[in-house]
């Protein structure tokens, strides 16, 4: 049985807010499609930059197949902390999935891909779309 814990957010990330029950629907659907046994989701604290819950999940990951987060952009925004968490998961030979993006990290190559996506996202978020079209709409 591939038991996985869900991980969702109670605060916006990259300017987006998704209701928790919608996050859980997406996580459950991902688990069904990938034949994973979904266990209850843990919700990150709403305080800015908190990664207390994901840390806790990774510490307790030994009896699980892995973690299914709603989005990869819910990982800690601090690069060092993010890498530390992903490294820990890999050292324990576990997997973290990202339901919204249909991605996973189970090896170094996938970890590098996630980092690239993070970096591009950070750069592209600095381009203010609404400001570009403010006078054109």
């Amino acid at each position, binding site marked *: 049985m591939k038991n996985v814990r869900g991980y969702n957010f109670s605060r916006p990330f990259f300017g987006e807010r998704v209701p928790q029950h919608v996050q859980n629907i997406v996580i459950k659907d991902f688990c069904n499609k990938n034949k994973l046994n979904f266990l209850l989701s843990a919700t990150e604290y709403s305080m800015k930059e908190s990664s207390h819950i994901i840390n806790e999940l990774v510490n307790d990951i030994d009896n699980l197949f892995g973690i299914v987060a709603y989005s990869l952009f819910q990982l800690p925004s601090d690069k060092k902390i993010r890498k530390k968490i992903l490294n820990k998961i890999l050292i324990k030979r576990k997997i973290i999935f*990202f339901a919204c*993006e249909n991605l996973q990290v189970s090896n170094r190559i996938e970890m590098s891909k996630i980092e690239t*996506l993070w970096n*591009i*996202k950070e750069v*592209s978020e600095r*381009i203010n*779309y609404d400001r*570009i079209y403010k006078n054109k709409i």
Partner: protein
Amino acid sequence: MSNFLSDYEVKISRQFEDKGFLIKDIEDLHSLNKLRDVLIKNHLKINKIKKNTSTNEEILNSTHKKIRPNNLNQFRLNIINEINKNKDIRVLYYKISKPILDIILGNELSMQSRINLSIQLPMDNSSLLPVHSDVWSGDSPFETVVWLPLVDCYKTKSMFILPPKKYNKIKKIFLEKKFNSSDKIFKKIKKDLIWIDIKFGQVLIFNQCLPHGNVVNKENQTRWSLNCRFKSIFSPYRDKKIGEFFEPITLRKISELAINYSLPKLK
């Protein structure tokens, strides 16, 4: 502004700007045939059809003899899921599109993570796309659509697009309260629309900011076409985000180094 594009690139770019789309003969027919083979293989497998002497074109054109409209969407989704499990499919799609993308979009691209499939059975109104512009529904104007027919498409078996020179008409229509549905808008612009005539072996790239869509297929053959969006990696994203919808496919080394760069810290 300086323009160092070649004469050929300028010519192609102007055509795209003036018409709102380009149709080009595909150079890499090997990739195209491989891609179509993947779809046909899945079609035959899902519907338990034995391959007979029919050509690939005939198999696809006659899909309406095997699939009922009620089952069409589930069938379409099954095929989409199956083809997107194949890691080569997006590479083939990119290789087919590359010559024209290089000219009008660039060479550091994000590509849609999943390729879409459209199947239009004759006289079926269950999978129509009323007149729309993708940008009106949350796409970034920095995206473009590569539309790949798997059979010859013409008249109502194809799609329509409003040419750029008529776009101002749409702006005026939106200001009038009586045009409060897409059907009313369609009727108003119907005579201005261009109906795309394209053959298997050609690729269409169009400006998704322009209103486009399709109507009930009144021809006696089924349409099969794929569509996929591309954009520059570092152009603005809108509702379709990096990661969940787009994936970088040709990130260049300087950009890779740059997004990882940090200035030295001072004490």
